[in-house]
C-alpha cells in the first residue's frame, strides 16, 4: 500500500503532496529530494529507503513522481501506477510540465483522491474517473489544431463539443543497430528491434463501436504467411483487453469501444527481419591527417522512399579524448555541427533529410598528442531522428469506421510516425 504520493519539480519544489495514511511526516519529501540529488550514476535510483520508508519514483516530463511506502509491495505495480498517473495527468492537462501541474493542482488532487484511498489503488480507468472529476482543466498553451500533443482530452475549455476527432497513430519505435566496415559498401544489420503501438486518442462524447482495419496481408509470428504479396509481418502482438478480436483472424479488423482519452489498442514487436532497409546508411572514413589532426568524412544516405522525409536528424560521433577544436565542411547552411568536449563527441544536426538524398560532411578535429590508437575511439556513431508518415513494419490503417455512423460531425485523423530509440552504427 502507498503511504504518500508526491510530485516534485526537477528543482525540488513541492507541486503535489498527498498523505494517505498519516504514517509519515511531510519531511519525507525533503529526505527524498536530498537522496535523489545525492545519487551518483551507478546506484539504482528507482527504489530508495530511509528508516524503513521506501521511496519509489519515476521521472516523467522532467518531474519526479514519487510514492512512498512502509510495506514491501510489488515494484511493477507501483511503477506502472506512477506511469499511469502521469499519463492521466497528461490526458487531462494536455501536457506534462511543471507549469501545467501547477495550474491544474486542484484537478490532480481530485484525481488522486479518486484513484487511491487509504493507500490502495481504487481505479485508474478514464471511463470511471470522468464521472467523478468535476474540475475543469486549464490548458497551459493556446489550442492549435496542428499541435495535438497539447490538447487536453476531457476538460480543456479550448475543445469544442462539435469537433470530435479521433486519431489512431501507429508509432513504431525504431531501434536498430547497423554494423559497417570502413572498406565495404554495405553494412551488415546486427540487431533491429521495432516496438510499435496503435494508439487511439478519442474525444467522442458518446461511446460507439469503432472498427479499425489493418493490412489484410498482416501476418503474426514467424511461420504464418498470408497471400502472395509482400507480407507485412510482426513477431508478436498484444491487445488492449477491451479489443474484440472476432474479425481479426479473417479480416484483420479490430473492434473496440474506445473510452475518452488516449489508449493503446495494440502493441507489436518485430525483431531482426525488417521488411525494408534501415532508413540510413553511413559511409564513414576516419583518417589521421597531420600530426595532431583527425579527418572524419561522413557520407550519409537516406534510404526512405523519395516522397518521405526524415526530420530532426542528429548524429553523434564520439571523438578521441582531449579534442580541442574542430573545423567543418557541411553541404548546406541549415545543418549545424559542433564539438562537445565534455561528452567527447561531435554533434551533426540536419533538420530535414529527404528520402533518397545523400549528404556528406567533413570534420577536421584537432587532438593534441594524437596516436594511431586514438582512432579506435572514433565510433560507434549514434543517430536520432523522426520519420513522419512512415512505419517500419509497413503496418497501415486501412480504414477507421464508427458504427453506428454518427449523425454529427466526426473527424478522423490517422497519423504515422517512427521515432528512433537507439540507432547505432559501428565504424
Amino acid at each position, binding site marked *: 500500500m502507498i503511504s504518500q504520493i508526491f510530485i516534485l519539480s526537477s528543482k525540488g519544489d513541492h507541486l503535489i503532496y498527498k498523505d494517505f495514511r498519516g504514517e509519515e511526516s511531510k519531511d519525507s519529501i525533503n529526505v527524498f529530494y536530498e537522496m535523489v540529488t545525492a545519487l551518483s550514476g551507478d*546506484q539504482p535510483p*528507482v527504489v530508495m529507503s530511509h528508516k524503513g520508508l521506501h521511496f519509489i519514483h519515476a*521521472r516523467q516530463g522532467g518531474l519526479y513522481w514519487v510514492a512512498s511506502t512502509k510495506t514491501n509491495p510489488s515494484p511493477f505495480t507501483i511503477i506502472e501506477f506512477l*506511469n499511469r498517473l502521469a499519463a492521466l495527468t497528461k490526458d487531462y492537462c494536455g501536457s506534462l510540465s511543471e507549469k501545467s501541474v501547477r495550474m491544474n493542482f486542484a484537478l490532480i488532487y481530485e484525481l488522486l*483522491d479518486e484513484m487511491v484511498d487509504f493507500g490502495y489503488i481504487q481505479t485508474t480507468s478514464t471511463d470511471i474517473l470522468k464521472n467523478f472529476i468535476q474540475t475543469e482543466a486549464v490548458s497551459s498553451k493556446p489550442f492549435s489544431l496542428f499541435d495535438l500533443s497539447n490538447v487536453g482530452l476531457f476538460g480543456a475549455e479550448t475543445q469544442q463539443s462539435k469537433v470530435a476527432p479521433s486519431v489512431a497513430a501507429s508509432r513504431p519505435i525504431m531501434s536498430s543497430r547497423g554494423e559497417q566496415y570502413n572498406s565495404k559498401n554495405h553494412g551488415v544489420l546486427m540487431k533491429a528491434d521495432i516496438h510499435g503501438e496503435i494508439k487511439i486518442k478519442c474525444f467522442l462524447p458518446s461511446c460507439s463501436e469503432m472498427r479499425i482495419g489493418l493490412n489484410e496481408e498482416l501476418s503474426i509470428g514467424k511461420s504464418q504467411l498470408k497471400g502472395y504479396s509482400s507480407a507485412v509481418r510482426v513477431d508478436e502482438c498484444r491487445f488492449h483487453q477491451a479489443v474484440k478480436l472476432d474479425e481479426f483472424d479473417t479480416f484483420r479488423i479490430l473492434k473496440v469501444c474506445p473510452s475518452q482519452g488516449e489508449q493503446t489498442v495494440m502493441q507489436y514487436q518485430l525483431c531482426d527481419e525488417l521488411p525494408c532497409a534501415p532508413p540510413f546508411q553511413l559511409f564513414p572514413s576516419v583518417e589521421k591527417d597531420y600530426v595532431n589532426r583527425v579527418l572524419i568524412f561522413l557520407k550519409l544516405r537516406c534510404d526512405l522512399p523519395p516522397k518521405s522525409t526524415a526530420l530532426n536528424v542528429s548524429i553523434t560521433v564520439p571523438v578521441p579524448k582531449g579534442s580541442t577544436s574542430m573545423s567543418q565542411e557541411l553541404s548546406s547552411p541549415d545543418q549545424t555541427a559542433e564539438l562537445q568536449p565534455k*561528452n567527447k563527441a561531435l554533434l551533426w544536426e540536419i533538420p530535414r533529410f529527404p528520402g533518397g538524398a545523400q549528404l556528406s560532411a567533413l570534420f577536421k578535429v584537432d587532438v593534441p598528442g594524437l596516436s594511431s590508437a586514438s582512432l579506435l575511439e572514433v565510433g560507434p556513431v549514434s543517430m536520432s531522428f523522426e520519420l513522419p508518415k512512415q512505419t517500419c513494419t509497413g503496418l497501415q490503417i486501412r480504414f477507421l469506421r464508427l458504427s453506428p455512423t454518427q449523425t454529427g460531425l466526426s473527424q478522423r485523423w490517422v497519423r504515422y510516425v517512427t521515432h528512433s530509440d537507439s540507432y547505432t552504427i559501428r565504424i
Partner: protein
Amino acid sequence: MTQGLDVSALFMDMVKASAKVDIVQKKLVYLYMCTYASDKPDLALLAINTFRKDCADPNPMVRGLALRNMCNFRMPGMTEYIEQPIVAGLRDKASYVRRVAVLGCAKMHSLQPNTEIDGIIVNELYALLRDPDPVVVVNCLRALEEILKDEGGVVINKPIAHHLLNRMKDLDSWAQSEVLTFLLRYHPRSDDELFDVLSLLHAFLQSAHAHVAVATLRLFLHLASAHPAVQADALLCTSAPLLATCGAASRELRFTGLCHVQQVMRSQPGLFGTHYKCFFCGYSEPTYIKFRKMEILVELVNDENVALVLEELRSYCTDVSPELAQAAIAAIGRIARTYSEKCLDILTGLLALKQDHITSAVIQTFRDLVWFCPQSTAAVCQTVEACVDSPQDSEGKQTLLWLLGEHGEQISSAPYVMEGYIDGLKTELSSAVKMELLTTAVKTFLCRPAETQDMLGRLLHYCIEEESDVCVRDRALLYYRLLQRGVEETRKVVTGPKSDPSMSVLTGRQEEPISQWASTFNTLGLLSGRDLCLQTAVISAADQPSNSTGKELLPDVTLSSPNDTEEEISLSLGPPLSHETFEKMWLDLEILHRQTLGSPRPRTAPDTLQAALQLVKIQTLAFTPGDTVLWKAYIYTRSTGTLILAELLQGDPQAPGSDESLVVSVKQQPVNQHAIRGFASILKSVLQTLNVDSS
C-alpha cells in the same frame, strides 16, 4: 497550502465554505480540512455536522466523498462520529459508497489500534466479499487484512479462494495483482485442486500488464513448489512479458524488468539465451540500466553469441563515462574466464588507447583473470611486459605491482618497473601502494635476487627510517626481520601455498533452486540494492569464526563481568561493513543509548585494542591516532539479528568532568535494548581488563 505554506488560520472560514453546494468547491474544502484537522481538532468538530449531512445526500458521489473525507480526519475521538455513517455506508445501494465505507472500517481501526476488534464489522466485511462490485471485494480483503493484522491477517479458506479465482476476470489489473498476492496464502488441499487453480490462472501469465503477469508468476512459483516442471513452464510463459518490460518506454519499468530477469536467471540461466540482443545497451539509456544489462550479458554468453557480445561490450569500453567503461572492461574480464583468448585480444587492444582509467581497469581485470584461470598467465605477462605506460590511480598501481610480484619470473622487465616506483617513493601518497610495493619487492627478490637486492635495501631503509605511516613502517620491519632469518625462511612465508580458486571456474556457478529467491520475487527488496540487502545481511549473519589473531596477545580476557546478572548475549562479527555503509548508517540512525564507561582510554597500542575488541567480536572501524585530545573510535558488532554501531569518545568538551573517562554512544538497527545493555557491559569489561593490563 500545497506548496508548504501554513494556512491553518483560515480554518473557520473553510468550515463555513463547506456548506456550499458546488461540488468542486466542496472537494477543495475537504482537502483543506483533512490536512489541518489534526492541528485544530476542536474547530474540525464544527465541520462534522456538514459531513454527516452530506453522508445522507441523495447523490451517491457526495455521500461517498463526505464519508471518505470524514474518515480521513486523523484526530482522537473521531470514531464515535464516523462509526454510524460507516455502518450505514456498508449497506448503501451505490457501490461507490460501499467501497469508501469498507476502507473506512480500516481507517477507523487505525485511529484506535488498541481497541478490541469489532466482531460485527468483521463479519459484515467477510459477507461483503460476495459483493457484486469487484472493487468492494478487493477493498474488503484490504480492510480485513489491516483490522486482523494481529491475528495474521485475512483468512483465505477454500470457498473464499475459489470465489476470488472465479471473480478474477471482472477485476481491473490493479485488483488482480493484489488478489494474486492474497492468494499466496492459500494452500490447495490436493494436487487436483492445485492444478485446477493453476489452469484457471494460466491466462494471466501472459497478461498485457506486466504487474499482473509477474504477480501470477510469483503465485505459480509458490504454489507449484513441489512441481519443478510446472515452475519451469510458468517461467517460460512469462519470459515474453518480462522481456517486453526490459524494452518498455519507461526507464523505471525497464530497470525493474531487468532486475527480475536477473533473478530468474539465477535458476534458469538458459531461459533468455536466445534473446541476448535485447540486453544490448541503447546509447540514450541511463547508466544504471546499462550496468544491469552488462551483468546479464555476461551471464548469457555461449559459444554462438560470444563474438557478437564481445564486440558489443568492446564498443562500451570507450564510453564517455569512466565508470561505464570500467564496468565494460570488467565484464569482458568475466567472460575471459571461459573464452580467454578472444577477450585477451580485446583487452590488449584497449591498452593502446593510453587512457588512465582504461589502462587501470584493464590491469585490474588481468589480475582477476590470472587469479581465476592460471592458464592465461603467460599471455597476460606478455601483455603487461609490452604495456609501456603505467596506471596513475592507486588501485591500478597496486594491481600492477601485485602482478609483478606474483609473476616476476615471467615478466623480464619487472625489476625495472619496480625501480621506477621505488625512485618515486617520496612523492607517493597512498600507503596501500607502498605496502604492495614492499610485498612485491620481497617477492621479486626471492626469484631474481641479483637485480633486486640493491633496490630492496633502499626501499626497506626508506620505509623504516623515513616513512611516517605506521602500517607501512611495521610492514617494512616485518619483512626486514623475516629476511634476517634467512632467505629460505622468507620464501616459506612469503610464497607459501595458495588456495586454488580456478576450481570454481571449472565447476561453474551452481543453478540455484527457485525456492531460494521466490519469496523476494516481485518485491522492492530486489530493486533497492544495498540498503535492504544490508538489513537481510544483518539478520542472516551467522556466527562466523572470529578472527583469532588476538588470542595469543591477550589470553586472559574474561568476558563476563561479575555483576552481569542478565542472560549472556552473544556478539558476532558477521560480514564486514565498508566505511561508506557505516558512515551512511551512522548518519541515518538516532543515538539510542549513551553511557559513561567509567574507565579512561587504555594506554595500549592501537593494534592491541583492536585485537582485544575483536576477541569479543567487536570490530573496530576507525580511530583517531595516538594522543589526540578528542580521542574517538568507531566500532560495530552484530548480535541476535541486530547491528550495533558505537562511538567511543574521550574528552568531549560538551560533557565536563568526563575528561578521563570514555563515553560510548550506541546506535542500532533494528532496535533491541537488551542487546545494547549486553554490548555495553562487554565493552566495559574489555576496557577495564585492558587498563589493568597496561598499568
